[in-house]
C-alpha cells in the first residue's frame, strides 16, 4: 500500500482523488458565491462565509482542502517534470495526433490557475483571516466580515473582471479533460458509463464556468 504512491500510477491516483475533491469543493464555493447575486442583501453570503471560516468541522476540512490543493499542484508539477525528462530531445515537428485537445495544455492552464489562486487568496481569504482589513457589518447584533462588499468592489474593476473570467475559462480547460480523466485514472471505465461520465464532465464544466463568470458580470452591470 505505501509503495502504491511511489509508483507513477499511484501518483496519478493522488491527482485523480484530489482532483475529484476539488471538483466537489468548486460546487460548494459556487453555491456560496451565487448567494451574493441571488439575494438583495449581502447577509446570506457574509453569513455563509462566516460559517465557513468559523465552524470546527469546516476548519478541519479547510486543512484538507489546502492539502488537496497542495498535493494536486505538487504532484501535477512533479509528474510533468518527470514527463519532460522522459522525452529528452523533443521533436522538430510538433505532434498533431488526434487527441483530447484540452489534455495538451493541463500544465499551462494549471500555472495560470495557480497564479489566480494566489491573487484570489490574497484578495479575500488572507485579508479576512490575517490582515483584518475587512470592513465589519452587524447582523442580529453580531459582527461579521463584510466580504460581500469586498467582492462587489473588486468586480467593479473592468480589468479584474476580465482577468477573473479568463481564469475560469482556463479552469474549464482543466475540467473538460480532468473530470473524465480522473475516472479513467481510477480505472473506472465502462462501455456504457464512460460516455455518460464524459457528458457529465461537460455539463459540470458548463455549470461551473457559467456560474462563476456570471457573478462578476452581474455585479459589474447590475449592482
Amino acid at each position, binding site marked *: *500500500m505505501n*509503495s*502504491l504512491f511511489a*509508483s*507513477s*500510477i*499511484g*501518483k*496519478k*491516483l493522488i491527482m485523480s482523488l484530489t482532483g475529484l475533491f476539488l471538483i466537489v469543493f468548486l460546487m460548494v464555493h459556487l453555491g456560496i458565491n451565487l448567494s451574493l447575486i441571488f439575494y438583495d442583501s449581502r447577509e446570506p453570503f457574509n453569513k455563509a462565509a462566516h460559517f465557513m471560516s468559523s465552524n470546527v468541522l469546516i476548519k478541519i476540512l479547510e486543512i484538507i482542502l489546502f492539502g488537496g490543493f497542495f498535493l494536486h499542484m505538487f504532484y501535477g508539477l512533479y*509528474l510533468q517534470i*518527470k*514527463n519532460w*525528462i*522522459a*522525452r*529528452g*530531445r*523533443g*521533436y*522538430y*515537428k*510538433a*505532434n*498533431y*495526433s*488526434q*487527441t*483530447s485537445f484540452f*489534455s*495538451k495544455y*493541463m500544465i499551462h492552464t494549471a500555472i495560470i490557475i495557480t497564479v489566480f489562486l494566489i491573487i484570489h487568496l490574497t484578495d479575500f481569504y488572507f485579508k479576512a483571516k490575517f490582515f483584518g482589513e475587512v470592513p465589519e457589518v452587524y447582523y442580529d447584533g453580531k459582527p461579521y466580515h463584510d466580504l460581500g462588499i469586498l467582492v462587489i468592489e473588486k468586480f467593479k474593476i473592468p480589468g479584474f473582471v476580465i482577468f477573473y473570467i479568463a481564469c475560469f475559462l482556463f479552469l474549464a480547460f482543466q475540467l473538460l*479533460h480532468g473530470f*473524465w*480523466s480522473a475516472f*479513467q*485514472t*481510477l*480505472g*473506472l*471505465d465502462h462501455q456504457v458509463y*464512460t460516455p455518460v461520465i464524459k457528458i457529465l464532465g461537460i455539463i459540470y464544466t458548463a455549470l461551473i464556468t457559467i456560474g462563476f463568470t456570471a457573478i462578476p458580470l452581474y455585479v459589474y452591470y447590475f449592482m
Partner: protein
Amino acid sequence: MNFTLKIWRQESAKSKGKFVVYNVSNISPDCSFLEMLDILNQQLIDKFEKPVCFDHDCREGICGACGLYINGRPHGPDEDITTCQLHMRRFKDGDTIVIEPWRGRPFPVIKDLVVDRNAFDKIIAAGGYISVSTGGVPDANAIPIPREDADLAMDAAACIGCGACVAACKNTSAMLFVAAKVSQLARLPQGRIEAKERVIKMVAKMDELGFGSCTNTGACEAECPKNISISHIAKLNREYIKAKIF
C-alpha cells in the same frame, strides 16, 4: 511524384545528430514509404554515401520493427497502419516530408532513425507472461472462456510492440503497451492467478526504465496501428490499484 525529405541523421548513439535535406524524384504513388526510402538509399549508395538507417523487417504491418515519426505523426498520415504500410499516394507531389526517429529517453537513438526499444523487452521480461513451463498443462478445452473475454483479450493482444504509443505520447508514457499485456492476461482465467504480481512488476519496471506517466490524452490510441483502446489503460489502473490495496 517528387519530394523533399528532411531526415534526421545521427552517426551513432553518442554523436550529435542533425537534419539533412534530400530530394527524390519520379516516385510512383503506389510506392510504399519505405520503398521510397530504399530509392533514396540507392541514390546515396550510388554516390558512395552511407544510406539512411531505419528499422524494418516484415513490411506487412505485423512485426512492429518499423516506426518513423513522419510530419509530426508516428507512422505518418494514415489511420491504423504501420510505417511500412504507408504509401506515397497519401502525400501531395512536391511535399516536404520531415522524418524523425521515435523520441524518448527510454528509446535512445542507435543510428539515424533506428532507436533501441529493448525497454519493451525488459518490461515483458518483468512479468508479461503466464508462468507456465512446457508440458503438464490441462487440455485446451478444460477451462471454457467466455467469448467476450477472449475477444477483449485478443483486442489487447494485437499489440505489435512498435512503440508508436510512446512516440506519440507527450509524456513518453508506455502505459498503452503495458496495459495491452496486463489487460490481455488479466481477462483470461489462466492469467488471473498471477495477475497481481504481474501488474506490480510490470509497472515497477516501466517506471524504473524512465517512461513518463499517463495523462489520458489518447494520443497513443490515436496512433496505435492496431487500434488498441485506452480502455485497457483504465483496466491497467484498476488492476494496479486493486493489487496494491487488496
